[in-house]
């Protein structure tokens, strides 16, 4: 943080973050919010495992268990994993392409506040009558019948959150297309930027059907529509199709940026360029493309028929090919390189076998006949936790260590980091490996308890012990963070000493304008090129000049707040007891007020012209003289 920022009081500090449009600060916001939701999701996981520790347990009731499993999945996927990935994308991608911010800084901020208000709305359900309880997928027949407003918190909360994600997706796409530094062609972009690009494309095309599906569910539950109501001519399979047309690309939205983070880590800590760059790019695009053609493998047992099942089975297996290409390329990157086993590198090396295990069980499930046996069993639970935890969560933990200095200017403690790593890895495998066998032995998923003497007791107990190990690992990570923040030992621009890409060429954290002069990119791994020629800094592409910066604004917060308020109105206007739409005038008033705040704020934004401000080049020269890094 600049010396100016440290002189702020608490109020000014908070206001700065409430109104920021700086991608680096928005990254902090996503990181903290995502981490908080990760802890909440983790507590929900602990409660699941404690309940299932022994047969016929009564730690939680059946209804509460359903709410917990629903919220665990929903929170982890939508409110923890995605925002944490967005944190890294926001912090790093503009730096990697030599840009000074994203294409639409205001919309970037709006995306964050929409996500946060959506997530808060969803979690308020715990205190306002009960959380949603129809699974993170909220299938139509069950969710239509769910009493209370839990499901409405789900539909409205995720709808608001989803708008934010969609906006951020478009933002990253435009940034990467239009704002690359001179010399950075598409085929010179780092892999993390490429995976962000493909994942953002997936976001634009996958979150839209989700929004439609959520609208349909909202209309059916709160406004009397008949999309999924068989009595009215509706069809519940439509919901499943819409949900999984979103749901399958969603997992690639999660895993592709994770792959991107690992690509950066593998090349940095092998001191060697990424092996097979072109094939990595091609594989990423192929995975994104195929990701839209396999969704019905979540629906093999719904009766689509053998031809449909066969088509989707083959397509699903096909995705393993580009993924395998990536695995081999990572291994070949390490081969012959000078490898250092820092904490991020440990996570990366552990990711390879863990993710591959998850991947191969995926190919097993892709065989539709076998899936008839495995569907809705713990085998599936084991599979997706292996790919999500073994893929995405390991990447998030690795990225936390790897990008911490660039985001916060300090370094997390390596010793504590390695302790967290080992505890988490062992706990993860303990919890989920045994679940493959539980599934093969016939234990169904989403059950709040099981009967004794089926041979499931030991496995469930071991699974729970693993969960406790993971919890301890996370606690140690939190301690690591606290110790690092308190000690506040500042680091330089390239603390890992082997940075290859542009973000490592500027200060940690970068000045608010990122690059004093837009750099000239001379090839792949541009900072490495300069280093190999003995230069300390990047070659500039332009002379020193005035820099145009965007203004901060409180409007994104207001727009999001308005939708949050309106959601309450939309939910409570429906009288559940008497099946009466628009029954509650106070709720209708709240709905209108909320929308008025949102649209009023949007009009306010349109009415005043915001052209930003300029940093004059004299101020930039002063910064140089004071010894700040360029």
């Amino acid at each position, binding site marked *: 943080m600049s010396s100016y920022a440290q002189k702020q009081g608490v109020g000014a500090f908070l206001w700065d973050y409430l109104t920021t449009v700086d991608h680096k600060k928005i990254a902090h916001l996503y990181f903290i919010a995502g981490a908080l939701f990760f802890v909440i999701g983790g507590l929900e996981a602990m409660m699941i495992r404690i309940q299932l520790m022994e047969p016929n347990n009564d730690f939680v009731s059946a209804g509460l268990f359903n709410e917990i499993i629903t919220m665990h999945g929903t929170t982890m996927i939508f409110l923890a994993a995605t925002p944490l990935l967005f944190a890294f994308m926001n912090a790093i991608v503009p730096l990697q392409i030599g840009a000074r911010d994203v294409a639409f800084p205001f919309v970037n901020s709006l995306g964050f506040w929409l996500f946060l208000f959506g997530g808060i709305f969803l979690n308020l359900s715990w205190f306002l009558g009960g959380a949603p309880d129809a699974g993170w997928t909220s299938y139509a027949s069950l969710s239509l019948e769910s009493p209370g407003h839990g499901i409405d918190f789900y539909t409205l909360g995720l709808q608001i959150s989803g708008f934010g994600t969609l906006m951020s997706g478009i933002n990253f796409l435009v940034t990467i297309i239009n704002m690359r530094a001179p010399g950075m062609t598409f085929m010179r972009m780092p892999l993390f930027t490429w995976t962000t690009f493909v994942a953002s494309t997936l976001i634009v095309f996958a979150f839209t059907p989700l929004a439609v599906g959520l609208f349909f569910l909202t209309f059916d539950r709160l406004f009397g529509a008949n999309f999924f109501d068989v009595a009215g001519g509706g069809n519940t399979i439509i919901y499943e199709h819409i949900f999984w047309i979103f749901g399958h690309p969603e997992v690639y939205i999660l895993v592709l940026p994770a792959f991107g983070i690992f690509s950066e880590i593998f090349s940095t800590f092998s001191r060697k360029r990424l092996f097979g760059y072109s094939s990595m790019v091609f594989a990423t695009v192929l995975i994104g493309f195929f990701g*839209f053609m396999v969704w019905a493998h979540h629906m093999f047992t719904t009766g689509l028929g053998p031809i449909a099942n066969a088509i989707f089975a083959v397509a699903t297996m096909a995705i393993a090919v580009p993924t395998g290409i990536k695995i081999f390329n990572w291994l070949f990157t390490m081969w012959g390189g000078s490898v250092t086993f820092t904490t991020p590198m440990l996570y990366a090396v552990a990711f390879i076998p863990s993710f591959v295990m998850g991947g191969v069980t995926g190919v097993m499930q892709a065989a539709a006949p076998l899936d008839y046996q495995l569907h809705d069993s713990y085998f599936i639970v084991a599979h997706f936790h292996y790919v999500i935890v073994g893929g995405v969560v390991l990447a998030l933990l690795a990225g936390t260590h790897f990008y911490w200095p660039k985001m916060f200017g300090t370094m997390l403690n390596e010793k504590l980091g390695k302790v967290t790593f080992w505890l988490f890895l062992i706990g993860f495998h303990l919890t989920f490996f045994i679940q493959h066998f539980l599934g093969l032995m016939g234990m169904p998923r989403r059950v709040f308890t099981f009967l004794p003497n089926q041979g499931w007791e030991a496995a469930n107990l071991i699974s729970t012990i693993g969960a406790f190990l993971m919890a301890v690992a996370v606690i140690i990570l939190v301690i690591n963070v606290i110790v690092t923040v308190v000690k506040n030992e500042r680091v330089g621009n390239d603390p890992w000493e082997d940075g290859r890409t542009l973000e490592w060429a500027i200060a940690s954290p970068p000045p608010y304008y990122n690059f004093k002069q837009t750099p000239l990119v001379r090839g792949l791994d541009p900072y490495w090129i300069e280093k190999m020629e003995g230069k300390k800094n990047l070659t500039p592409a332009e002379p020193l000049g005035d820099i145009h910066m965007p203004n901060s604004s409180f409007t994104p917060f207001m727009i999001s707040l308005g939708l949050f308020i309106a959601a309450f109105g939309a939910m409570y206007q429906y009288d559940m007891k008497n099946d009466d739409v628009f029954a509650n005038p106070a709720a209708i008033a709240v709905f209108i007020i909320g929308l008025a705040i949102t649209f009023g704020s949007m009009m306010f934004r349109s009415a005043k012209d915001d052209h930003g401000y300029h940093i004059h080049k004299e101020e930039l020269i002063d910064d140089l003289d004071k010894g700040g890094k360029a």
Partner: protein
Amino acid sequence: MSNEHLNSVNPNDIKYRRKKNAEEMKHQVITFALMIFLTLIAFVAVGYDGFSSWFTVPFILLLAAIQVAYQLYYFMHMSHKGHEMPAIFMFSGVFVAIITVIAFMTIIWW
């Protein structure tokens, strides 16, 4: 037809640009006339009782697709230079759209 030349105060340039713009506008009006014509044919095809629905339905869908192509390429300038990225994203959207519609018309049973 891309109109991407440099700024200049040369009066000949503005005459040239005006002429080019007028030419393009003429093409737009022709496109519009074509669209009205296609729409009319579609309505007539449906109104006329002599055709079987096996002919009419694919026929009007084809007319719609042609009309949309005209809208995209002419009214929305997708034929101009600098529209490569927009074209990629629009076609990707159309790809996902087609898959979704086909799925809903084949693997939703009753």
